[in-house]
């Protein structure tokens, strides 16, 4: 039981006091290092985000200067005459995401409620695993599948792209909703059943209000994915730079346009595509901000 240790460098022996001091110093150093490394990692994320925004703006500057605000509401996309307008890609992005969410959210919530309330126990795990597998499928596989199974039926239209997006968004919203529904205290559910509520009323009046923050978060995650989806959409949307009145016509989205045309672009054409990318960034940012505000409002109303 030694209460004296040798300091390797000087060969002098240390008292307990000095031992403790050296231990504290080394802990402090380790702590400092850990703090610095994690701080650097967080800072790296901020720097990355900043540099992406800056590089998009710098790249898009020629197009911003040439077209100004007209870019946002002009439909014309002519490579030869170098006249570009973002209205049809923006319209396509917003419409496909909107229709995809309209289809996917009710179905996802239904699946989540089924899994948590009504599903027989032996089926719960297989269905849950199937949902997670669906979430893991790369998006280009969805595009290929859609190309072979959906386009012969619906053609290469806005509707087909929305259907594919709905199928892609479904697993995310379902998985998050299911996890969040499972956090509802059993006592609340049983109390509701006790006063005579049907399963549907329990879901609507107890489970959903309790978990609204999580559900809205899941929906926003799905929407973010739908807005940016590229390869799945470009196979099935028809890549037409026009705004047709109906959803049964070809269209284009911001990401599909960039994916198809970036490689051969240059000069003002490339700047226009980068400006489209910047617009997508802004749209996604607006959607996330709206989601945050909505959540804040909901929480304030509930007095949370």
């Amino acid at each position: 039981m030694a209460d004296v240790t040798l300091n390797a460098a000087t060969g002098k022996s240390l008292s307990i006091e000095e031992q403790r001091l050296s231990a504290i110093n080394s802990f402090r150093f380790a702590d400092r290092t850990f703090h610095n490394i994690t701080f650097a990692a967080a800072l790296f994320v901020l720097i990355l985000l900043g540099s992406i925004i800056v590089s998009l703006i710098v790249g898009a500057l020629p197009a911003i200067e040439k077209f100004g605000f007209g870019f946002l509401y002009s439909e014309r996309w002519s490579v030869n005459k170098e006249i570009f307008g973002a209205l049809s890609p923006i319209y396509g992005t917003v419409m496909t995401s909107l229709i995809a969410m309209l289809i996917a959210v009710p179905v996802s919530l239904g699946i989540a409620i089924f899994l948590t309330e009504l599903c027989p126990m032996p089926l719960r795990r297989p269905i849950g695993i199937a949902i997670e597998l669906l979430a893991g499928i790369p998006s280009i596989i969805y595009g290929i599948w859609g190309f072979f199974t959906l386009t012969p039926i619906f053609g290469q239209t806005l509707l087909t792209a929305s259907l594919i997006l709905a199928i892609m968004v479904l697993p995310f919203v379902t998985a998050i909703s299911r996890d969040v529904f499972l956090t509802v205290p059993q006592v609340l559910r049983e109390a509701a059943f006790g006063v005579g509520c049907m399963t549907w009323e329990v879901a609507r009046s107890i489970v959903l209000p309790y978990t609204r923050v999580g559900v809205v978060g899941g929906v926003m995650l799905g929407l973010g994915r739908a807005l940016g989806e590229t390869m799945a959409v470009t196979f099935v949307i028809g890549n037409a730079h026009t705004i047709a009145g109906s959803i049964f016509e070809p269209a284009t989205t911001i990401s599909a346009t960039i994916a198809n045309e970036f490689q051969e672009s240059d000069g003002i054409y490339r700047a226009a595509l980068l400006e489209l990318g910047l617009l997508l960034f802004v749209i996604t940012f607006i959607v996330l901000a709206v989601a945050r505000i909505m959540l804040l409002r909901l929480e304030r109303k509930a007095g949370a």
Partner: protein
Amino acid sequence: MFLRSLSGAAIFIASVVGANAADISGAGATFPFPLYAKWAETYKKDTGNGLNYQAIGSGGGIKAIQAKTVTFGASDIPQTAEIQAKSGLVQWPMVMGGIVAVVNIDGVKSGDLVIDGQTLADIYLGKITSWDDAALKKLNPDAKLPSAPIKVVHRADGSGTSFNFTNYLDKVSPEWHDKVGASQSPEWPIGVGAKGNDGVSGTVGQTKGAIGYVEYAYAKQQKLIYTDMVNKDGKKVEPTVAAFQSAASNAKWSEANGYYEVLTDEPGAESWPLTAATFILMYKEPVDKAASAEALKFFDWAFASGGKIAEDLDYIPMPAAVVTQIKATWASQIKTK
């Protein structure tokens, strides 16, 4: 232990990188891609050197060679001599082929339908919207045309095939000339866009009532239904090697400045109206001289031994006189030492 795994990893990486050091890099048109792929395979068997060709479209190929990310660019869009001089590039035609209109109609087989330039332009302008339109019935009195809507398919990317196709429509239809014109990325009035010749083949194959335009090798490989056409002399022609040859024989390569020639709508009773040449672009003073020398060896081999492979895929090899001229151009213009 750590040092051992590190050195093991280094040797593995070196061997992988070393194995690919001899690959010639090129990018561009999807028009000749089936041929270049076959040539690359045979060249690798003969000499052990590989070719890495990315079929990203003529527009992409021109951008790639301008950015110097590849040793050669491939494009069906000929560059004028002025542009070549300005960018320091040399261009020469590598091989010629035909573009065909492909359709997907039940009960119609390859060669059943005949179409002419004016009708094709009207379809792509959106003026003819149904398969049983009077203009199509006049050209095909015996064919059973359904009263289904025509689903137009075109290219979504910058394409040499689109350039040659719209160049032809521009020549034969004044309305097309006014409204759209010839370009690698025209403002298509209607239709669905697909990426690459393969994308158009796939989309036409999947969509009932569709019409598209692809290089002939794609139509043959994907077993698509192609149509015959009416040429400049008013005769009905089928897309055969003889028809492509007849059109190609009109090209005056020796007089063309910088080899600028567009072969659409050529005269000749047998000529196929949608014939096109595809070009290779390389730098006069390349950054990597050794890589350029390797590339020229490959093209030399292709001119010497690749003719049979080209004809098997229904492409037309360049005539011998032109090949001699091209080799003289290499010797005088491209610095590989």
